[in-house]
């Protein structure tokens, strides 16, 4: 049996295949279809301080090889998360990473403090959501502001802190360096790309929120590029995501420098995508005689 286990930001995982925030509910939705306990870790939908109802529909729109979404962080708030959702997620026996979304630095700190000691295994700071007007991407595109948030959260919690970055910036490496210097234990790359679609019949934007975040295989090369650039520039592990649908895609991210990967939109096309990716990685290592799969991380730039 191939050992795919890995440690990311001090969080021990049985394999490097996670689910991307906002695509997997609390695990319970997928549990009739496969053993959710086989995943590397679960990542929650973005959690805000107060309950948040999200954007008006339509919230999604299919696009070539992907989709736009503008869900807008709908969630019941951190307290309901802790009491109602976290116990369900912990029940699968794999680490739970809480994606947190403040609208201000102070809110990020307060959410982090409330989650500390609850059983959550790590935090993923969401300074990259394109679908809310304040916080989200507004904080995550300016390195100084992003660093301030990260520094404040790191000081407020004993939990590992992962920072999820937006690709909607000129220089993602500068952003990555800033949040790493501020104490981030790991980085998630990438959140969705800002996009939109227009209905030519109604001559109006399709999404209720007008703008949305693009995900799916359409954005994969952008994500691979971000992982390639950032993993060479910082010393913390990178969790790669963006259009990963098959085992080959996951391997591409690992070769680009990712220590773990997350599967998101692919679940909408194939609910078993993450399971198939884990199997692929096992077979790949077996067939190629690889005992330590982590030697593959960043091979594409280490061997250049």
């Amino acid at each position: 049996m191939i050992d795919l286990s890995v440690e990311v930001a001090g969080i021990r995982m049985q394999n490097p295949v996670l689910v991307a925030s906002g695509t997997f509910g609390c695990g319970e939705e997928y549990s009739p279809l496969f053993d959710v306990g086989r995943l590397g870790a679960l990542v929650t939908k973005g959690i805000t301080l107060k309950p948040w109802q999200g954007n008006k529909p339509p919230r999604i729109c299919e696009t070539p090889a992907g989709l736009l979404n503008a869900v807008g962080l709908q969630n019941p708030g951190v307290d309901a998360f802790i009491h109602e959702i976290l116990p369900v997620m912990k029940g699968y026996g794999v680490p739970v990473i809480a994606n947190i979304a403040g609208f201000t630095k102070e809110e990020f700190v307060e959410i982090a403090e409330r989650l500390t000691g609850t059983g959550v295994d790590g935090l993923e700071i969401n300074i990259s959501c394109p679908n809310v007007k304040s916080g989200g991407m507004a904080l995550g595109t300016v390195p100084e502001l992003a660093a301030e948030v990260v520094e404040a959260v790191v000081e407020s919690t004993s939990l590992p802190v992962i920072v999820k970055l937006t690709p909607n910036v000129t220089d993602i490496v500068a952003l990555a360096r800033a949040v790493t210097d501020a104490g981030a234990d790991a980085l998630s790359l990438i959140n969705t790309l800002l996009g939109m679609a227009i209905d030519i019949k109604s001559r109006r934007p399709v999404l209720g929120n007008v703008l949305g975040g693009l995900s799916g295989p359409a954005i994969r090369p952008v994500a691979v590029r971000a992982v390639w650039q950032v993993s060479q520039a910082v010393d913390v592990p990178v969790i790669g995501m963006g259009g990963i649908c098959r085992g080959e895609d996951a391997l591409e991210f690992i070769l680009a420098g990712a220590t773990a990967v997350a599967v998101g939109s692919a679940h909408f096309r194939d609910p078993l995508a993450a399971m198939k990716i884990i199997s692929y990685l096992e077979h790949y290592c077996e067939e190629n005689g690889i005992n330590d799969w982590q030697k593959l991380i960043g091979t594409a730039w280490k061997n250049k």
Partner: protein
Amino acid sequence: MGTECRADAQLSDYAARVLEQVAVAPGCRLLTVSSPGLARAASPGQFALLGCGTGYDPFLRRPLSFHRVDVKRGKVSFLYRVKGSGTQWLAERRRGDVIPVLGPLGRGFRHSDRGKRGLLVGAGLGAAPLLFLAERLSRQAWSLTVLLGAPTRTGILRADAFERFGTVRTVTEDGSTPKKGTILDLLQEEINRGGWDTIYACGPRVVLKAVQEISARTGIPAQISVEERMACGLGACLGCACRSASSSGYLRVCREGPVFDAGEVILDD
């Protein structure tokens, strides 16, 4: 992020083999697949997500409600309109082809214990989920009247199939059926006639809103099947939101729906 449990052990991604594909009207197809497990598990008003295409374009699956289910023969039928690349791909499937079918999904029609006089309102393709419902209700000795409406005669779908289970009344906007008007005219006639225990409706939002209004005004319980753009179908992605009437938030069409009690949701335009 729902936390309720449901005992849907039969929910699965079935590899369904195409048995038959029939054009029932211009642009409308009746697709029948073999999937005994799905047939056993499906209830009227529920739906499935059908995988379309072999690459990534189209990317999302297509949600289609169960049109007919033959448990004994393990057959499941879907009635759909060819609208875009996904349904076009489905329309090209032939006998023997395999389609991934994730289901059954969502909350279907509920039985009311008020009485067994049901009024079914199917506007256009809204007829799709009502045939399965009509069959199950008639088996339980319900007395049914089925209203089918469309702009023209070719849009009246499956009237002959419905006739086995109740009285069928049709209406077209261009008068190509004996009765000219909209389905709302027929609905109002039937409401005036009275004696209904439950209204079941599927169709465009304007029709569903009228059913909501009639239900609120007359006190006759109504259930409406709502459509929305959908991604995961499982309640995870929160993409298919419908405004809740009882709270400030949203309900998931794929999970709390697609069939809602008329007073449960606010249908935005």
